């Protein structure tokens, strides 16, 4: 070990959503004096407004802190925050790979949750020193002693001397810092070796290009070096290296054990992907770091300009988002109902919601999104295989031998009183229970195998709603499996509206068909003529509703020459018409597309 490394600690904070990760990060930053308390917005590391609003961290931020420990020495603490959602498992795993230790926050009132476990497994995969911390001990319902036992039983790590803290109240923060200094091992690595650094995050800066966050394992890197990204097979000249503390601070070099950023005029996020290895082009390391994966889109949907919005503006915005986020991709597609638009791929449903919301908020765009879909593996009669994610492209059943759908392993944790209700909703969604275990007397861990298409539809909403928010979920893809899925179409006034088509399991088609027809009936206003709404599989109609014709919409009296009231009413009506989408002869409000996807507790 080189002597400078002795006083470096690289660590992450891992937790289940809402257990206080971002708040603890804030307190640590505050405690080490980087940001004066009055300058702090709550949750400093979550710097996108959207994240702060939802209280979840999506995009990670990394900060270098200086801490004077009780032993009198000054330590460099590199805090690598991790995204807190199941959609971003891969990014979490790469962040963890950049560390030697992880603080595991467990809510002292709630205990171990699905994502707590999932994150622990990821940390164990990277051989990290895991340091449990019990948060929210200021709450009257905190049960620290019980939860400590739970951590030891369920996770199998010692929790006896875990710091008891309240990140919100700023209690016990120093204990956490001391714990890190004492128990997280310092980095090792040969500063004179060949450069080997891991990219664990990146973001786009309009002046510097893509800025990559790296952890240097061996060697060093400085301005002017030619670097090579080993998986992308691209070369760049380094224009700047530095740290975030928390703003960017230029440094002379980054050495083995350091965490910092590199700028090298990289144009697109996809050229510098998370997990890739940076080495020196002139003196490269032989083997890249393990664990690199191309981000795989799991969920797809169509994004179309809403009425009055231009295709080109949407395209520009999607390109900007893509530059920032390599895991999000898109390509042009055309729908007969919605015109020109884009097929977009996401890591998961939350990722999709975030992108759509950013389009609406950051770019001020109005978009229509179609039903999310997964990728189906279609085995044709001739044995060839097609991967289909757009329902419209599903080949005719005559040509196909069978269709396979993605199955995930779903880990669900719930208080035991909800077991019945959750087993029921899993059953409804074609879940297969593998086993069930009692984590403690009151908490149950259910292991299911479930089709991904059921999970993305409304499973998470249903789980939260049935467990009053106490249920938690983690899932990962395991395999493709033969399945009786069919394409269900929706017809308005006998015209097939492709944007409403979806692929569903045969056993669910009738229920979904009825649900969609009923929803559309509620939403589509009465028009000049009667509008039949039909759900069909092939030629067979499986559900039907009718929007009655508009019979009366007239103002009998306009009194005393006051036409302003009537005019306002007509203007409002005109506005309403503008928000509608013309499908053949039928006008459909844009909210119809999202409404047919909403989980309905009463169904």
């Amino acid at each position, binding site marked *: 070990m080189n002597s400078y490394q002795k006083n470096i600690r690289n660590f992450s904070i891992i937790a289940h959503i809402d257990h206080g990760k971002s708040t603890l990060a804030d307190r640590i930053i505050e405690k080490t004096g980087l940001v004066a308390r009055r300058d702090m917005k709550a949750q400093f590391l979550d710097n996108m407004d959207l994240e702060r609003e939802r209280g979840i961290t999506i995009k990670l931020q990394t900060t270098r802190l200086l801490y004077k420990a009780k032993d009198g020495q000054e330590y460099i603490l590199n805090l690598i925050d991790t995204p807190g959602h199941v959609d971003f498992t891969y990014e979490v795993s790469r962040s963890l790979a950049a560390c030697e230790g992880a603080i595991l926050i467990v809510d002292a009132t709630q205990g171990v949750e699905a994502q707590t476990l999932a994150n622990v497994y990821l940390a164990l995969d990277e051989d990290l020193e895991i340091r449990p911390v019990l948060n929210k001990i200021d709450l009257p319902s905190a049960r620290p002693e019980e939860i400590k036992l739970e951590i030891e039983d369920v996770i199998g790590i010692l929790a006896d001397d875990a710091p008891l803290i309240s990140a919100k109240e700023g209690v016990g923060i120093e204990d956490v810092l001391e714990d890190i200094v004492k128990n997280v091992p310092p980095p090792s690595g040969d500063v004179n070796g060949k450069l080997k650094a891991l990219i664990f995050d990146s973001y786009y800066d309009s002046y510097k290009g893509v800025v990559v966050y790296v952890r240097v394992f061996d060697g060093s890197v400085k301005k002017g070096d030619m670097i090579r990204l080993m998986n992308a097979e691209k070369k760049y000249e380094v224009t700047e290296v530095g740290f975030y503390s928390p703003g960017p601070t230029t440094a002379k070099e980054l050495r083995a054990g350091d965490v910092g950023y590199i700028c090298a005029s990289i144009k697109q996020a996809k050229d510098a992907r998370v997990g890739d290895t940076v080495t020196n082009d002139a003196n490269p390391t032989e083997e890249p770091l393990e664990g690199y994966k191309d981000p795989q889109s799991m969920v797809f949907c169509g994004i179309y300009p809403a009425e009055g919005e231009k295709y080109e503006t949407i395209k520009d915005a999607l390109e900007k988002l893509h530059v920032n986020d390599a895991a999000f991709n898109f390509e042009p597609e055309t729908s007969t109902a919605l015109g020109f638009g884009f097929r977009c791929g996401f890591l998961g449903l939350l990722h999709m919601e975030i992108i759509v919301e950013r389009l609406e908020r950051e770019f001020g765009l109005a978009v229509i999104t179609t039903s999310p879909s997964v990728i189906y593996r279609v085995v044709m009669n001739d044995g060839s295989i097609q991967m289909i994610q757009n329902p419209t492209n599903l080949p005719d059943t005559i040509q196909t031998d069978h269709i396979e759908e993605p199955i995930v392993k779903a880990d669900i944790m719930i208080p035991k009183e909800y077991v019945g209700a959750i087993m029921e909703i899993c059953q409804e969604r074609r879940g297969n229970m593998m086993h069930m275990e009692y984590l403690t007397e009151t908490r149950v861990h259910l292991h299911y195998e479930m089709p991904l298409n059921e999970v993305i539809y409304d499973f998470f909403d249903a789980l939260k709603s049935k467990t009053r928010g106490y249920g938690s979920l983690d899932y990962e893809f395991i395999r493709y499996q033969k399945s009786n899925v069919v394409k269900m179409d929706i017809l308005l006034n006998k015209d097939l509206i492709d944007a409403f088509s979806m692929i569903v399991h045969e056993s669910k088609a009738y229920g979904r068909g009825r649900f969609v027809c009923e929803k559309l009936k509620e939403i589509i206003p009465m028009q*000049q*003529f009667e509008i039949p709404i039909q759900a069909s599989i092939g030629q067979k109609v499986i559900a039907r509703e009718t929007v009655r014709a*508009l*019979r*009366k*919409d*007239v*103002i*009998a*009296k*306009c*009194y*005393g*020459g*006051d*036409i*302003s009231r*009537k*005019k306002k*009413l*007509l*203007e409002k*009506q*005109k506005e309403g*018409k503008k928000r509608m989408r013309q499908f053949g*002869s039928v006008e459909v409000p844009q909210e119809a597309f999202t409404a047919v996807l909403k989980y309905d507790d009463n169904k």
Partner: protein
Amino acid sequence: MKKLGLYIHIPFCKKKCVYCDFLSFECDDFLVQNKYVDAILNEVELKCREYAGYSVDTIFIGGGTPSILQEGQIERIIKKVRESFRMCENAEITIESNPGTLTREKLTEYRRVGINRLSVGVQSFDDELLKLIGRIHTVEDVRDSLREARNAGFDNINIDLMFSIPGHSKEKWHATLEKAVEMDPQHISFYSLQLEEGTPLFEAFKQGKFNPASDEEDREMYHYGINFLKEAGYQHYEISNAAKPQGECKHNMKYWSMQDYLGIGIGAHSFMRGIRFSNTSDIREYIAESGGCGYKTYTVNSIRDDAGEFMFTGLRKVEGIDLSEFEQRLGTSFFDFYAPEQDEINEYINNGFLELRGDKMRLTEKGIDISNDIMAVFV
């Protein structure tokens, strides 16, 4: 010389009807009424200076219930108008009335000051229904009032009728129409009862105390009414109005033809020289300022406003609008102006809701039923 129609608002009622959301309130106090009329006289004097270049060819005294005013008040108003404005010789002068408030003396007074058209709020020839909607008069009162009006010399009379009253059946509506026609008025207005938020009737509806007529029943009564009146010799000339030949209300036609009209009194609306404006609705303020308050709303119409208003007011008339008049007023042809809406307009035409014949565009009877939906295209 340019013409204008004068509207004068009298906001007082003996009792407010359960369905009414007009600007009116229960007030029998002679002193308040007198002060209000004072303010009206003053406003007339103020306004006439601004519009010296106009002559008045219609006056409409509406409410509320103008006939609630004690004897002499209407005379003061008309006299003041005559002193202040140039009057056309054959001006149409209308007063609205409630049968429960009309007396022989008042009717004689109205005739004496030159009022030549009487509008009577009858609503129904069914005592039960009258009671249900909170009217203060009976069918007997209606007959008495109409007889007295004839005796006083009124030969141009309008009767207001209402359908889709809770519990209304086609039979009852037929009976009311029949009795109305027997009275032989020049003009009949027939309105579908509207449930307006904030009225006692609306509250009762919200609490589920009655079922309003369905859209189908309502439209059936409406079309039945039109046919009945046509057979009785009346011409259907506006969505809710029918008249014997030459019996149309000239004043109301100004509203639907974008002609100038000037409103006097609280809440009164005006359209003069392409500008829409309205008075305060606050009677205390109005009296305190002696009718000289500033405008509550004041809108200089844009071309878009003009086009939209021309269309949606004009389409209320059964004869519809004149495309050449559109072009003359707006300086653009109808088809150029509404080119973006062309498909929608064609669809209404193809489906038989709108009719385009030569230079005229009008709503069909079927189109009237969904007129808001169609008019919204043009605003």
